């Protein structure tokens, strides 16, 4: 009287067909907003002010800055390096750090047109990066640097 599925006995339902019901690939760029009072040193960028959740001081990502003149900079502070816009995707794609972390921090000047920033974010996404932390200043916070474009 075993639970045999052959010979006309009743069939057990132990074998559920696990063919995927949904086969959708979602390509998402996860955008999170972070205020960066002190920990991130980028280039001279006038950041927007928000009440976003503060990021953990332990967390350091590669910083991509977009200045008001639309120039792109990779890296922190005085060591940041200007990257031509047409090379950004290649440089990020080849970058072992960002390809491991899959996230970077974006510091864009608050006076930049929305379209310019979205363009940069689209390039970042094409380079295989799945998370972008938008760096902002806390309300009433100081500009990122004394020589910031204020």
């Amino acid at each position, binding site marked *: 009287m075993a639970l045999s599925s052959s010979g006309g006995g009743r069939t057990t339902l132990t074998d559920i067909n696990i063919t995927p019901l949904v086969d959708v690939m979602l390509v998402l760029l996860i955008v999170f907003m972070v205020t960066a009072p002190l920990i991130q040193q980028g280039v001279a960028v006038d950041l927007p002010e928000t009440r976003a959740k503060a990021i953990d001081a332990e967390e350091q990502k*590669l910083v991509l800055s977009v200045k008001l003149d639309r120039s792109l900079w*990779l*890296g*922190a*502070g005085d*060591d940041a*390096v200007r990257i031509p816009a047409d090379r950004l995707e*290649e*440089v*990020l794609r*080849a*970058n*072992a*750090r*960002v*390809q*491991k972390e899959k996230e970077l921090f974006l510091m864009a000047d608050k006076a930049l047109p929305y379209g310019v920033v979205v363009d940069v974010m689209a390039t970042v996404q094409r380079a295989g990066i799945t998370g972008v932390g938008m760096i902002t200043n806390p309300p009433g916070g100081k500009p990122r640097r004394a020589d910031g474009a204020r």
Partner: protein
Amino acid sequence: MRFARLTAACLALTLALATATAAAASADRPRVVVDAPDFHPLPIAVASFLAGGDARAAAEVAGVVRADLARCGLFEVLDPRSFLADPGEGLAAASIKFSRWADVGADGLVKARVSKGPGGFSADLRILDVRAGREVLALTLPATEARDLGHRIADEVVRHYTGEPGIFRTRIAAIRRTRDGRELVVFDADGQNARVLLSEKALLLMPAWHPRGGELLVTSYRSGIPELWRYRFSDKSFRRVNTGHASMGGSWSPDGSRIAFTAIDGNGTDVWTCNPDGRGARRLTTSSALDLSPSWSPDGKKLVFVSDRAGTPQLYVMNADGSQQRRITFQGSYNQTPQWSPRGDLIAFTARDERRVFDVFTISVDGGRIQRLTQDQGRTNEEPSWAPNGRMLAFTSDRSGTPQLLVADPGGDRQTVIASGAELMTPAWGPFPAD
């Protein structure tokens, strides 16, 4: 089940990140220690080398270093297209913007200035620890050729991080099929610089290196039957070794004093040893089955060989006098071409599975642990040969059609085709260079 992945996790390099200048206590150096379970290749950036006169040579040297370090499986060599540093950035730690190297993911940084002089090239080499922001090695290396200089630098990088010698200046011999015969070819360890030593109409098989590198033992059918022949590099001589038998698959003992080989007689084959001139031949196996393909343990006290005395070809180990023969493989029905690692811990071999596909495996000498290097990569991956440091293997594969020459780490995670074109067979990785 992919055993190679397990191996990868086992073959490991552990980094103690505390560093010191080259002159300081070696106990503080960053270390790549073998066989730790949390192995990750060390992310290393090889900066564009500065040129003292010959920019093309400097670029070639840097390219050789990057390719060498990537091929050996111990390093994750970072893509130069990602680099943020000024290409003209100096060698001194004080002039280096380390955050730019950290931003591309580098832990180690290799810099050099390549100069051309009357006698060849020289490199002012620096290895730097990116996190600590300081120099950990400074060395001047000479070489007559740019590629050799690159291999020397890569050897120094491996030596710095592992404490073991690198193999980038060694050579690999192989048999190449030609339209009307066979050639004995020697490649650099990166597959470059192929040199034809012998071009024969007769069958040519299974080269084996003298432990000091000056000669190759080859099986040749030049006289109509398989016999052992010795090719000497210094005078390009090719001489027959008279063992008194039809013989094949010779292998020099680690001290060069004896040759182990397969003697063919009547209806079987047996493993024998003899002096390098063929005298003093001694039979080690006496079974009526096929006993063949001997390979020495690095201490010269044991031999691994193949026997079908139990019905199928399996690996056996015996003492160098033929005593204490014992079987070590019990999985699979077709195990052959054993090669004992120079480190002594593993034996590499070729196994045929139930689909009649050949793959490269390693087994621990006690027979307890089998690991797979290749799987679903063509129908034939075979004839493994160990690099002299026991950290890499050369083998042939038909994964792209005509059998090519590949090198890989013992886990099989990093496999690189180094020579292709005409069919390549029976690679033999040579010893460390004398200088």
